[in-house]
């Protein structure tokens, strides 16, 4: 996430300038070279090396104290970091005050949180909600896949251990990342990568979940980009490359690319929701609305895909290493020009021209401006259907949900409810029909995927069933039906970690 990275870069610049002034003025600034070595090791997540550099630092050295605080912050040792950064000489530095406040917030928001360390997979997960520990084995597997895919696609090796902070809500996400809570709520931000770690909202917090596993990989890609470019990647590259990488750790999903990033980008630009690539602002999470965020993500994803397609598969790793090795002051555009002969402006022009001719249509259900057609009818009937199902009235529910399906034919949520209503009536075939054609989903729905998986399993299509169950799990793991693959208690899924998750979801059902 770029706000803090951007701010961090700026603050670092300011700190360096201050350092130079102090050195020039003969003040007791401290060991500048040693501080720079420590800083470089820290931001590249070589934390042990940073600790060695800082070992035995003189007590009165402000810059080394600042770097020690930074190193501890990156190591997620917040209480210690807070202690170091509270020194008055460190607080007197603008960056020192900023880091001190952040460390104190992190210490408060993670106090009493449960820490699970997985040495085998190189992962440390700290979670506010200890019940989330059943998610750790799944996170670990994904992190392992992500290491490989990110090394392949971006040319960066992720360090060990990777640090993940799993928080309950936007409040805590804001507290430990510095992102304004209001911004997080406005854009529906679920994760932020900064200070060398990934901070994610628990999928339990979102009623229908969110693509938490792809999100993890997206954020790990940010970590990789920071390391790989020494934090020199501009925001469009940060977000574009992360979007490019987020789905490449797993097999392709039928829902990938739907809605097409190209189509959303073009439609968004035409509606005035788009931004120039070099004018996205400090962070996608700080855009005015979730729709703006969606369009900007689509723009940068579409552009990076276009760039890779046109410049070749090694173009992206080359761009990252080029940025890392470029002379001070060189921009991504300079590196692109040096590597491909065209700068960012030229590439953007070419991409827009391509977009105008090749981007398809945005699906009717995806509305970037105003409510979807028939939305009110669908919303009313979905609510009635839910209430009727809650009271066990399957037949009556099916009646109102059929109206909802007519209004929103591609909404998986409606189909899942309809499938449930038919199932309550004992009409298995109609229930299956309701969820059979789930692709490509406009808005994915974990329960629809789970039902689909269960029907496939009953038809002995184990591969298809597993794929559907995984799609559901990757979206909403805390839904008991999803976690238990629609099995009836006391049955649980065969895989140990899934069985554990299923038991937990039944024991602590998501409200």
């Amino acid at each position, binding site marked *: 996430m770029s706000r803090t990275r951007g701010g961090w870069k700026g603050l670092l610049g300011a700190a360096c300038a201050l350092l130079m002034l102090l050195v020039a003025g003969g003040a007791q600034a401290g060991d500048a070279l040693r501080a720079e070595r420590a800083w470089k090791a820290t931001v590249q997540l070589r934390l042990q090396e940073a600790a060695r550099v800082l070992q035995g630092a003189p007590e009165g050295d402000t810059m080394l104290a600042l770097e020690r605080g930074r190193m501890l912050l990156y190591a997620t040792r917040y209480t210690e970091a807070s202690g170091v950064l509270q020194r008055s000489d460190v607080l007197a530095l603008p960056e020192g005050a900023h880091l001190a406040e952040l460390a104190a917030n992190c210490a408060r928001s993670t106090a009493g949180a449960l820490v699970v360390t997985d040495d085998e997979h190189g992962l440390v997960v700290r979670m506010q*909600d200890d019940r989330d520990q059943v998610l750790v084995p799944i996170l670990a597997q994904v992190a392992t896949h992500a290491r490989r895919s990110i090394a392949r696609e971006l040319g960066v090796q992720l360090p060990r251990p990777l640090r993940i902070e799993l928080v309950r809500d936007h409040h805590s996400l804001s507290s430990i990342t510095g992102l304004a809570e209001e911004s997080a709520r406005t854009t529906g931000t679920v994760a932020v990568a900064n200070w060398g770690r990934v901070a994610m909202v628990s999928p339990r917090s979102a009623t229908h979940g969110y693509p938490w596993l792809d999100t993890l990989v997206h954020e790990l890609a940010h970590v990789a980009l920071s390391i790989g470019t020494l934090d020199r990647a501009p925001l469009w590259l940060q977000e574009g490359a992360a979007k490019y990488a987020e789905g490449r750790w797993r097999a392709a999903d039928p829902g990938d690319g739907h809605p097409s990033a190209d189509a959303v980008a073009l439609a968004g630009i035409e509606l005035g929701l788009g931004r120039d690539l070099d004018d996205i602002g400090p962070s996608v999470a700080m855009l005015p609305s979730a729709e703006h965020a969606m369009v900007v993500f689509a723009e940068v994803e579409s552009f990076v895909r276009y760039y890779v397609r046109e410049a070749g598969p090694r173009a992206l790793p080359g761009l990252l290493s080029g940025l890392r090795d470029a002379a001070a002051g060189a921009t991504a555009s300079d590196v692109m020009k040096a590597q491909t002969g065209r700068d960012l402006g030229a590439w953007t022009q070419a991409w827009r021209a391509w977009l105008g001719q090749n981007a398809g249509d945005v699906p009717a259900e995806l509305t970037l401006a105003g409510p979807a057609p028939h939305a009110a009818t669908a919303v009313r009937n979905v609510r009635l259907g839910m209430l009727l199902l809650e009271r066990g009235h399957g037949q009556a529910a099916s009646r109102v949900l059929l109206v909802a399906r007519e209004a929103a034919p591609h909404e998986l949520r409606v189909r899942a409810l309809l499938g449930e209503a038919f199932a309550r009536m004992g009409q298995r075939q109609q229930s299956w029909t309701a969820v059979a054609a789930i692709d490509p989903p406009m808005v994915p729905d974990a329960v629809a995927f789970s039902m689909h998986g269960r029907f496939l399993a009953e038809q002995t299509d184990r591969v298809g069933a597993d794929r559907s169950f995984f799609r559901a799990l990757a979206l909403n793991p805390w839904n008991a039906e999803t976690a238990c693959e629609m099995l009836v208690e006391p049955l649980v899924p065969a895989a140990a970690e899934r069985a554990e998750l299923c038991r937990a979801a039944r024991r602590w059902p998501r409200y």
Partner: protein
Amino acid sequence: MKDGRGGVVARWTLGDSTQLRVAARFGGVLILQDETLQVTTIEDTSPKVLVQDTPRTLRATDAREVPMVYEVTDDHGLTQVDLVLRAGEREDRRVVARLDGQTRLDRGAVVVQSDDRFVRGVHVPIEIVMEARDNDPIRGPKWGRSETVVLIPPAVGEAEAKRCEALRELRGAAVDMLARRLTTEVPTGAKAVAPFWRQEREAHHKLNGLVQATIGASYGGLGVPRRLAALVRGQMDRLHRAVDSTCEPGNSHGACAGGYAKVRDTSEVTVLALDGAMRALADADAASISRRLAEVAEDAALGAKLWRESEPKRGSAKLQAALTVLGGGARSLGRLESLGHDLAEVVEIGVRRIERTVRGDDLRGAELAAVDLARRLRRPYPSFAGGGGQHGTEAGGGAPLDGLAAGGEMQDSFEQKGNALDELAREHAAEMENLQRALADAMREVQTESSREQAREHARRIRRAVSGLPTRAMETSSVGGAAAMMRENAERMAEALDRLGFSEAQRAGENALRAADEARRMAFGQSDLFGQPPAEAHAVERARTTVEQELGWVRERMEQAQRAAADRSGESVRRSAGAEQELAERTKRLAEQGSTGETPLPQDTVEMLREAEQAMRQAAQALRGADTERGVDRQREGQRLLDIARESQRDDASQADVSRGNQDGSSDSERRREARDESGMGRPLATGRVDIPGADAFRGPEEFRKRVVRGLSEPVDPRLRDAVRRYAEGLLR
């Protein structure tokens, strides 16, 4: 010391049992007494305090009051008996009895109500004990204490949770009814149609009964907010009309089926409106509970800090108490709707974090975790909001189609009507006040110095006329008594005239004449042996003539003044007539909007608005004709009706006193009907001032008593009528 009789006296304070022996010293020789005296001390024990049925534990939700029937004894004497309530760190000590220090036995009883201010203010278990102090002069006063009654207060949010469950039950019943209607068709046979519709009406009345019971009930002191109740009643009225009018005898099957489709649609809207309103209330309650729990979390942080820094025992107790309260609050939140469930988990997670740090001896961590929880609870938003993340990773995406937005637009529409009514009533009240101020100003202007001098002259005449009447009488039911009453009222009339208080002078004059008539009536029955009436009778007759003349002058003067005032304030009156007409139009439009659409106002509110409109039109007409007296009267009536209609819509999320207001068991609409009926009979304002008769209204003691009873009981709020009557009867018995 010497005792003055050759002996000596010595005094020591005896602490323990000992042997006493007297000795005498003569120079170097000490001669001991042969005998020793064994002195045995009996320790002054602490007072013994016994309280019936202790120890025991009660829940505040089960026990409305906790009687503490005590008996205190002491071996020497008692000085004080206290009732003591302790909850966590808080203590409330109340002196029940102060004694003389000689009393050795005291018995009594004291009751702690479940709505006691201390009980209401805490959420941790409360220890209730009786404590007594003795008068031990040697070692200082000692306290004895009884066994404990532990009162467990309701969990934070308990009342809100109960209310939400009741509304959920109501919603469930509405959903069940909808389900039946969605899966039922109108029968085709003519014979089956009548029972079918009868069944529909019965189902509707059953649901309506549940609605009335639910919105009229009290949930641990909390009622259903009036605006929500009005919305539900409006929906039920609409449903009632649909059920009642959609299939008349003799209609074709097609017409009846069409009518039933309308009933289905209306039932759907009713369910959605009820659901939306109920969820909105539950979410508001969740936010409110969350803020209260934030304070408890802060208490937990303080406990952890005390434990770590200075007072381990006290800090630990404080922290544990706070965690208990947080746990109870989380359970209450979990009984609400989605935001409540979400925040319940937030609290539970916070509590587990605090407990984990305590287990790990990390008290600084416990403090931080508690502070973090407090901060979160002060911002009672859903954990996750905004895009929803369904379309994309990290951020962006639209909200999923989960139907939770359904019903929201209905609530908004209903809110708008309620707000419009609020605004209308406020504007009308302001307009009425403006007119009254203008009239009063004009009246003051016409009261010149010359008229003041005239009035004083008339006052002097009155005083002279009654100067011969007695000033007091032993018997009020005698000619003398009536004459004294006449004089008193006549003098009051004169006094009012001195101040140019014509209205008051008129009232006092009328009372003086009534007293004179009473004296005349009694004079017939009190003739002396020679058939002559009592001496006062003649004086009363003479005075009566003068007072009657002066009263005529007062009336004439008032009419002149009113005409003059109306002329002077003509512009204001004309402007007010226009404004009144415009407000009447607005009232009409609001009544029309309130009786149509998916979110109608309750039928009786609409009727009230229509009556208000009529009164306002009459006021406008009277003001246009410069009949300010009638204009003002009709304007007041319009305002009264608007106020009653508004009262039914006023948003009051927490009606703590609803249970008291509902003691007579009548529903809101019944009370409003009563108010309207009373108004129709020409009685004073049901919600206005109580017309307590003055001392000048002479009707004899019996009549006066009746009038007090009637006066106190009739015009007040009908909810309080019976209680006031009982009170008044008791007062005058």
